[in-house]
């Protein structure tokens, strides 16, 4: 095994699934000749040809809709959206069509398609290259929503998503693409199962995507202060692994949910509601949520830093939670 980045792991997952199953296709803008704006589909055109690696016009409704129709007729399409910010035009297709197809046709038609979208903020992306819209998709029955944080999960979950008979929205944090390297095998990672990223005794920190790396930073800092943080990487947001959250909170009695999306109506609200309803007697402190301010991601670095949750804010929040 060689150590690969997350974007390389995603590319490997696509190549392996396309080699294994001739019905797997990739479509989207720039996925062919350019190999994707983040190079997640690099080399696929040369290997699998222009029919199975379909460069499309800039047409998100069309990309999503074509993927849905093709999925109904026997393909397993992986549609790439260049940024999660541009999933919005396709929201109607994903929510009104893909998510409802099986239910509304009493099981006649399914949509085994994957909608891949890079999400989250990196330096200078601005409002249209930085958004984290995952919670909106988690609100929709009929969809599965995945957000891996590390290369092995990205690969294993993407392979599972391709093989899944239902539509999967697959969020990839852009900052994770090239910042972490890891030895990655061929294992599938099941959808709906969380991973303990770091075991700990004192606090439960539930997060996903880019949040996992921020959590690691904070946990390392707090370890020096004698505070042992358990990081639960959800990996899948819909359905999310309630049991894993429960097991951890039952041991630590303290819960903080972290995500980069703004806090109001964010995914943390669902985790917090679950804990409040089901784990009330296990909690020794109020549930905390940490997310971005209810603002928009700015191109300006000062404004961006002022709105996104950072390591300092996270360590402060964890300290105060521990001290409660």
């Amino acid at each position, binding site marked *: 095994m060689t150590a690969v980045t997350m974007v390389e792991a995603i590319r490997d997952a696509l190549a392996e699934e396309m080699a294994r199953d001739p*019905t797997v*296709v990739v479509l989207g803008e720039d996925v062919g000749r350019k190999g994707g704006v983040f190079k997640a589909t690099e080399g696929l055109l040369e290997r699998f040809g222009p*029919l*199975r690696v*379909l460069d*499309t*016009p800039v*047409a998100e*409704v*069309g990309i*999503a*809709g*074509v*993927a*849905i*129709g*093709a*999925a*109904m*007729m*026997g*393909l397993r*399409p992986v549609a790439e959206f260049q940024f999660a910010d541009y999933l919005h*035009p396709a929201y*109607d*297709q994903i929510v*009104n*069509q893909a998510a409802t*197809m*099986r*239910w*509304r*046709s*009493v*099981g*006649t*038609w*399914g949509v085994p398609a994957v909608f891949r979208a890079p999400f989250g903020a990196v330096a200078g992306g601005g409002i249209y290259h930085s958004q984290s819209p995952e919670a909106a998709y988690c609100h929709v*029955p*009929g969809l*599965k929503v995945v957000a891996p944080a590390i290369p092995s999960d990205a690969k294993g979950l993407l392979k599972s998503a391709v093989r*899944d*008979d*239902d539509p999967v929205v697959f969020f990839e944090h852009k900052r994770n693409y090239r910042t972490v390297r890891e030895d990655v095998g061929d294992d599938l990672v099941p959808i709906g199962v969380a991973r303990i990223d770091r075991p700990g005794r004192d606090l439960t920190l539930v997060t996903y995507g880019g949040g996992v790396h921020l959590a690691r930073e904070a946990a390392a800092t707090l370890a020096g202060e004698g505070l042992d943080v358990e990081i639960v990487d959800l990996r899948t947001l819909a359905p999310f692994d309630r049991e894993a959250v429960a097991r951890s909170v039952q041991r630590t009695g303290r819960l903080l949910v972290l995500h980069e999306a703004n806090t109001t109506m964010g995914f943390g609200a669902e985790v917090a509601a679950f804990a409040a309803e089901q784990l009330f007697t296990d909690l020794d402190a109020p549930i905390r949520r940490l997310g971005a301010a209810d603002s928009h991601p700015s191109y300006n670095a000062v404004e961006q830093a002022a709105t996104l949750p950072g390591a300092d804010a996270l360590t402060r929040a964890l300290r105060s939670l521990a001290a409660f």
Partner: protein
Amino acid sequence: MLPADLLLRSYRLASLTRAVDERLWVLSRQGRAGFVLTARGHEVAQVLSALALRVGSDSAWLYYRDLGVGLTLGVTPYEIFLGALAKAGDPHSGGRQLTAHFSSRELRIGSVSSAVAAHVPHAVGAAYAARVLGEDSVAVCWFGDGASSEGATHEAMNIAAVHRLPVVFICENNGYAISVPESMQMAAPVSKRAAGYGMPGTTLDGTDADAVYDAAVAVVERARTGHGPSLLELCVPRLVPHSSQDDDRYRSDADRAAAAARDPLTRLRARLVDEGVADTVALDAEDEMLREQVRAQADRALAAPDPEPARARRWMYAGDDR
């Protein structure tokens, strides 16, 4: 000129469509069926275009007005009434969707969506799948003039044309998007847009059985032989309001009368009689029998069971169907 047997078959299907449509309105007015979406005036355009398909091989992407397309492809009146009455046994949506929202794997009919134009890119996806899988099937997509304004329609047509996919777009233009007349929907005919995508586009009288059938066969064949997509615009009269929940007060009496004068069923029937394919007495008797049969199917559907409440979340995900 269509041969006599095809003319007669078309008339029977168009007449059946009318009979089912009329019964649906009765059920709606009785408070038994909900929302009824009507095909009235579209019958000949629907039946004759649907006859161009290889049923079960070509995929069909309908909109909610396509009662005649469904019946031509093999949907039965009983199934339609089960759906309209929201019965558990409706094979298309189990009574979950509104009237005439067909879906059939066997007939290769994609699930109809109330959201206009949402299915147009699905048809293109089906054509793409056929290409990848090496099938010689064609995807045929019907939609109304209202749907022609949606962005999804543009994106779908453009992608189809760029990749020369085996898909046929059929716009049933009845002149109204509910109340908004064609003049306020578009400044040029729908078919003119085809040139902008680089595919052929034709406007036809959708009450002319020969013209519709010949054109549909030609464009389906064109798609099947690898020459790419086409757009047909079939102009049809809207004989009744948009739906059972609409009224026609926004139309003038003259406009309604002009539409009634273009009733495609009257025209097709006159042709059968003129050409000696059938006589009036025989057609009257046949139509009467058809109406009786349709009514019997509706009555049968009325007695069918409703779904159990526990079923409401079934078929949400794969594996939920057991």
